[in-house]
């Protein structure tokens, strides 16, 4: 997927003006927030699990090379094949080669953000292989030629009539007069259409929520059961996943699973948690004959050992975006790349490059709710700040911001001048604020004041000047009060 994250500001404005989108966004975060809150409240051990989860992932990242090798060894021992992909193009090529070698013409796909990241589905289609998303939300947006707007609920931004329109347009083989007003009618239609795809598929591609180093297993979590039909029916199962998804043992995976569903949907456990190890065993009734794991780097390895490495703990639950005022206002597409919300702001600059992604690091009010709810305790605002600093060092920040901060820095290094200038500034603004003490417009901050007034500083000069005046007034009394 080609990122448009550099244009976050423009994207966000468009999103705010999009009435349909605003209607779809309206109210949904509250539901997601309260479901999570009640699931967490019902588990007194949640905090202890968070701590342990953090420890597990920190340990894995600090030993990532060793765990990758252990995992590879176990996958191979179980009869599977492990593939390493430096970047998106290499990962796509590996998958295509496996499909070609098998003579595959039909592929089904489980929901996977990593395959979105590498643009796998359109790539396979461009190469003459039918590739169908089978998660209902993913299927809907595939029909509409869109990308997901939420990492857990990809069609979060759509209302029912838009879904019905997409079905009518693409399911031409069905009666054009059929009713599509009820949820159930839409679901049944999708279920029917996708059943045929499941049965026809030669290759099934899933992601992996976790890769278990000890056993060489991949693990997926779903509610619909589509991921399971994707991986059990076709002859070949390919799991495409990021290299940071490793956990040492199944026991470690269970700790993270206790956090995942509660944080994502407020369920205690998702309907289906499925562990896949190698191809089918001799004598097994069903299951794939070949099992492949494609492990993607795509910028992740460069985060190891950096100030941003904690972002690699992410288990993609989506809680941070469900609680983010910026995401809630503009939705997922404005972020211009696969991972929206706070996790996108913290992760994307590392994956698509700072030049493209740095605008996202500013997509925050720094209210800190994302960090508060993140089950992996990732300091998301702190990481965004690091990216901002880096963008600054690399001179990627917009000129007005660079110029303004440069001017400030010049004054800040000259305290006497700084005091003089800020004192003058404060008096000037206070005068402009008039009796109401509010400013309708601020020089160089017209964008900010176009939506709200700025409280003018009180008369009496800058904070430093007022402080000094106060000290002077208080000084004799303080002396006199000494005993």
């Amino acid at each position, binding site marked *: 997927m080609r990122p448009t994250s550099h244009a976050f500001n423009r994207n966000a404005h468009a999103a705010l003006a999009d009435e349909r989108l605003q209607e779809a966004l309206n109210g949904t975060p509250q539901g*997601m927030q309260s479901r999570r809150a009640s699931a967490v409240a019902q*588990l*007194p*051990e949640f905090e*202890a*699990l968070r701590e342990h*989860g953090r420890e*597990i992932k920190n*340990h894995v990242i*600090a*030993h990532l*090379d*060793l765990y*990758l090798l*252990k995992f590879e060894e176990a996958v191979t021992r179980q009869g599977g094949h492990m593939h*390493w992909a*430096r970047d998106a193009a*290499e990962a796509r090529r590996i998958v295509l080669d496996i499909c070609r070698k098998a003579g595959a013409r039909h592929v089904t796909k489980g929901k996977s953000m990593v395959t979105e990241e590498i643009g796998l589905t359109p790539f396979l289609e461009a190469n003459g292989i039918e590739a169908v998303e089978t998660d*209902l*939300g993913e299927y809907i947006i595939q029909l509409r030629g869109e990308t997901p707007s939420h990492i857990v*609920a990809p*069609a979060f931004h*759509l209302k029912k009539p838009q879904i019905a329109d997409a079905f009518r347009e693409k399911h031409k083989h069905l009666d054009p007069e059929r009713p599509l007003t009820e*949820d159930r009618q839409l*679901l049944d239609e999708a*279920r029917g259409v996708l*059943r045929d795809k499941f049965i026809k598929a030669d290759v099934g591609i899933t992601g992996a929520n976790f890769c278990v*180093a*000890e056993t060489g297993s991949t693990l997926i979590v779903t*509610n*619909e*059961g*589509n991921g*399971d*039909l994707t991986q*059990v029916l076709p002859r070949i199962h390919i799991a495409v996943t990021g*290299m940071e998804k490793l956990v*040492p043992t199944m*026991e*470690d995976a*269970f*700790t993270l699973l206790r956090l995942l569903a509660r944080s994502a949907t407020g*369920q205690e*456990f998702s*309907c*289906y*948690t*499925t*562990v896949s*190890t190698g191809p*089918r*065993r001799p004598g097994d*009734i069903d*299951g794939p004959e070949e099992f492949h794991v494609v*492990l993607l*780097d795509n910028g992740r*390895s460069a985060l190891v*050992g*950096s100030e941003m*490495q904690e972002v690699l703990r992410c288990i993609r639950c989506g809680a941070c975006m469900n609680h983010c005022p910026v995401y809630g206002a503009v939705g997922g597409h404005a972020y211009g790349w696969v991972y929206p919300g706070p996790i996108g702001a913290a992760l994307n600059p590392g994956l698509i490059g700072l030049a493209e992604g740095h605008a996202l690091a500013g997509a925050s009010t720094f209210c800190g709710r994302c960090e508060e709810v993140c089950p992996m305790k990732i300091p998301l605002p702190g990481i965004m700040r690091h990216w901002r600093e880096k963008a600054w060092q690399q001179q990627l920040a917009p000129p007005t911001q660079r110029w303004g901060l440069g001017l400030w820095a010049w004054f800040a290094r000259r305290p006497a001048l700084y005091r003089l200038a800020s004192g003058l500034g404060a008096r000037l603004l206070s005068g402009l604020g008039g009796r109401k003490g509010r400013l309708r417009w601020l020089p160089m901050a017209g964008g900010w004041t176009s939506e709200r007034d700025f409280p003018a500083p009180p008369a009496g000069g800058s904070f430093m000047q007022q402080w000094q005046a106060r000290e002077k007034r208080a000084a004799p009394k303080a002396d006199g009060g000494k005993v």
Partner: protein
Amino acid sequence: MTSAREEMLARVRRGLAGRDEAAARSDVDARLERQHVGPIPAIGTVEGEAAIEQFITRARAAAATVERLAGPGDVPAAVADYLAGRNLAARARISADLAGLGWERTGLDIVGGKADPADTVSVVSAEAAIAETGTLLLISGAEHSTAANFLPETHLVVVPASRVVGSYELAWKQARARHGLPRTLNFITGPSRTGDIEQRIQLGAHGPRNLHIMVVGDL
């Protein structure tokens, strides 16, 4: 040209430079060896009858239906009643280990082997049941078709009362001791569902719409 594998490992190692290599290796080996169990919530520590009751309550909360049967011999009649009560076809795909329970008396049309897209009902046995969240553990193998857990609209699962445990960890440990590492482990909590249409939950997405669990005593 270096391979992708070498390059990815080298990049990671660059970020981890300065680490005590010998200690790192022994840490990793110890961790894999030990299979350390993390904090188990109180709801995952129940045992015996308390575990069975909690399992039933929580499975129901996840929209499954549950009944208790005295012994395995009661399963065929219970299945026949369930299907008749819901006007479902009297035909089921069953897992091989349930074949000898005496289905002849019920008049149900019973088939074994791999599940087929035309199947509407399956009756299978579970490896374990987990009280913590009302979750079933099913495994693949020569007797168990994984597809039978997902293709039919109605999924009936038999689990011995003695196999109801508190936590995922315990279910996994016992299954591993009995079977090694099956190709597929399915942890199943309630029937399939989706919230993808305007965030409203609907049951019966791609997998079963009905999940009926029979907890069977060991008579």
